[in-house]
């Protein structure tokens, strides 16, 4: 906790930087922002009368200088007012909350599934090094890393929805709707984590203390589950956290492929309809989530590994 608190000023600085970058990118994005708002409000139209654009400029303070606009926006953000979506004129926060659950459910399910398989594969590979099990685990993780989520998603739809008819091909609402999207993302987690866990476990298994334990007559199973795994988990925690943060972003493709509700499809839809308040909020959220999750992982790692903590404090 103390470690995490010590990182807070840095975190606040990072978040301030993210807010400034997000706003600057939005401010200098090509095209007339008044037109972008009009387009978000009337997506099927392409031309807008000048009076309407002028009214929008006045409504959104678009003719004020850059810094004033930034302070106006950031002040509202600090007060928890993230503005209204250009497209629906409803609160950005309400829309976000309405979609958060779907993405978190998808991400956690995928992480759970992917990690379970990754642990199994990595454990088998490490306990049977050089065998076909080891090679199969490496090959499966390589295939998973090379296969784009979009492609895998379409294959799963084709196999399990079109040909077998076991699961719905798209949508949200029931646990059945979660199966194929979760499998798609879980495959990516499995691929990423199998390689990492295998290498962390191998590193731990080759530590001198393992030989000492063997000389003491401790069984291989006990050595692996009580000691090797424990040591491997120290670096793994950070990588799992990074993967979880990446999963939130990976959900964009999967949610679009399966036409699911969630933050990913919300972000993609907002970008396409040029709904800047929604885009800015989501970019901020993903950046903050990434930073916070990584900081928490580092804190957790530091707590479980005194060497890391000491090193971090020195830095």
């Amino acid at each position, binding site marked *: 906790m103390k470690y995490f608190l010590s990182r807070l000023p840095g975190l606040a600085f990072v978040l301030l930087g993210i807010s400034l970058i997000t706003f600057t990118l939005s401010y200098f994005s090509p095209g007339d922002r008044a037109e972008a708002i009009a387009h978000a409000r009337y997506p*099927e139209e392409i031309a807008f009368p000048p009076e*309407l654009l002028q009214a929008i400029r006045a409504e959104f303070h678009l003719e004020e200088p850059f810094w004033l606009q930034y302070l106006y926006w950031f002040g509202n953000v600090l007060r928890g007012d993230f503005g209204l979506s250009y*497209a629906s*004129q409803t609160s950005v926060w309400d*829309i976000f909350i309405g979609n958060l659950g779907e993405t978190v459910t998808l991400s956690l399910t995928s992480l759970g599934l992917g990690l379970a398989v990754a642990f199994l594969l990595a454990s088998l590979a490490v306990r049977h090094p050089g065998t076909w099990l080891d090679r199969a685990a490496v090959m499966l993780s390589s295939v998973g890393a090379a296969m784009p989520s979009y492609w895998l998603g*379409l294959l799963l739809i084709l196999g399990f929805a079109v040909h077998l008819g*076991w699961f719905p091909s798209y949508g949200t609402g029931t646990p059945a709707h979660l*199966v194929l999207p979760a499998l798609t993302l879980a495959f990516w987690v499995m691929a990423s984590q199998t390689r990492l866990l295998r290498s962390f476990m191998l590193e731990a298994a080759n530590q001198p203390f393992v030989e000492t334990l063997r000389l003491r007559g401790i069984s291989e199973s006990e050595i692996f589950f009580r000691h090797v795994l424990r040591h491997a988990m120290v670096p793994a925690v950070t990588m799992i956290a990074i993967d979880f943060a990446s999963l939130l972003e990976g959900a964009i493709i999967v949610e679009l492929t399966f036409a699911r509700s969630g933050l990913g*499809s919300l972000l993609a839809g907002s970008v396409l309809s040029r709904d800047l308040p929604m885009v800015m909020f989501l970019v901020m959220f993903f950046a903050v989530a990434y930073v916070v999750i990584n900081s928490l992982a580092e804190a957790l790692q530091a707590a479980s590994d005194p060497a890391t903590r000491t090193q971090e404090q020195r830095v």
Partner: protein
Amino acid sequence: MPNYSRAFWTKTLAATCLAAAALLSPAAAETKLEMVIAAPFGPKSSIPDPRARQNGWLSNRAGVSETLIGIGYDMTLQPRLATGFENLSEREWKITLREGVKFHDGSAVTAQAVKESFEKLSEEGHPGNNPRLVKLLNIESIELVDDKTLVFRTSAPNSAFLWSLTEPSAAVMKDGTDAMPLVGTGPFVFENAETDKTYVTTGFADYWGGAPKLDRLVIDAISDPSVAALALQAGDVDLVTNYPEPDFAKLLEEGKGQLFSEATARLFFLQPRVNDGPLSNQTLLNAVSLGLDRDTIVAATLAGVGGQSANGIFPASMKSWVNGDISLSYDPAKALAMLDEAGITDSDGNGIRELNGEDIVLKIRSYEGRAALRPTLEISQIMLQQIGLGAEIAMGEFGANNEALKAGEIDLHLQAWGTAPQGDPDYFPSTLVATDGSYNVSGYSNPELDALLKKGRSLFSSEERKPVYAEVQAIINRDLPVIPLFHKTQVSVGNGKVEGYRIHPAETYLASPELAIAE
């Protein structure tokens, strides 16, 4: 470890998946006649009042809301909630309502109810508030003549008034309740919606046009056409409104599938910078148009089924306004001869012709948002090179491209517009090619055309307006302030059981009482 056979593992996996599917699947739908349609766009809020913003487009298509006047499949005005519409003077329009029309809550649609619905358009804070439509209609007052007759009085003469009443936002609605948040008059009653995802309706037995054949209609937003096509194959949807063109062409070739196809009023065109730069040279501009093979563009970008080569700004299906005597041809030989004759030749032998001593390299931009834009841009570049014109292409952003065209930084902007969203022919030329048009960034100015457009707006009879706009179309083809390429054709595919579905050229209507699913 026992040596299990492959069949054992296959059966075990299948049984596990089946058991999981059975446990996870929702209960079988109770509704007998339900249709699920996959469309590219979804609702923009959970209770989208059809009068606000662009919500009316979806609720109109879903058959929840209706307007006083509609646009027919031949793009002419058609009675809807109003059976009669009469121009009393330049500023007065008498509207006679249809007998026996009920709102979804069972109450009658009266002149007073219509007046109240229109008044909500200008009521700030009301969910149906729509300042854009208020400006478009420009209503000064609404007078109730009797229970079924109203007189709309506009602040200024507005010959497009009746056309503006076809705008889906001009829906006649009654204030909703918690139990029934949207109270319209259409064949389907709003049940619920999820932003950008789904719009669910149920049949309205008391609909004035007869009870709909469907008990329930669901419109699901699936933005990726490939995913929508898979959903159709999986049996999760009954109809895909915007099917991937290459797959449609394949089905057409194989004679499979329940196919629907209709030309729409959406035009893909190039807007040139004609005030300065190379395309201020009319010969060069004409050569560009002659050098573009519109049939090949449609064949290559939309598999030959997603568009129709343009002969002008309006499609042939827009019978009431299209000038059928004009055309745009592909004639590279003529283009080459014209260029040679005008002295626009390749004197240094580098394959690119010169104008005023400089290589002609046209800067062309387009934007993301319509799948056919990028390939059209790429093919156009190749076609222009074949007549000795260099072309530098890039994708940008719509607004930024317009600014660049206005500043003369680029020469052509490839765009796609609905040319007659309310069926009126004035919108597209007045916006894009009139001297004071809000999107005339080409620098084109033709007093003859401006006078014709002004005249068209001042006339109230369609018979009198038609020759005016026919001449406008001819001038546009002659001067080329926009270079029409092709009109988009919408292609849909059903599961073989869809009945009563027809694609509307303005993409404004979809659900009708006749829409059904064969049992």
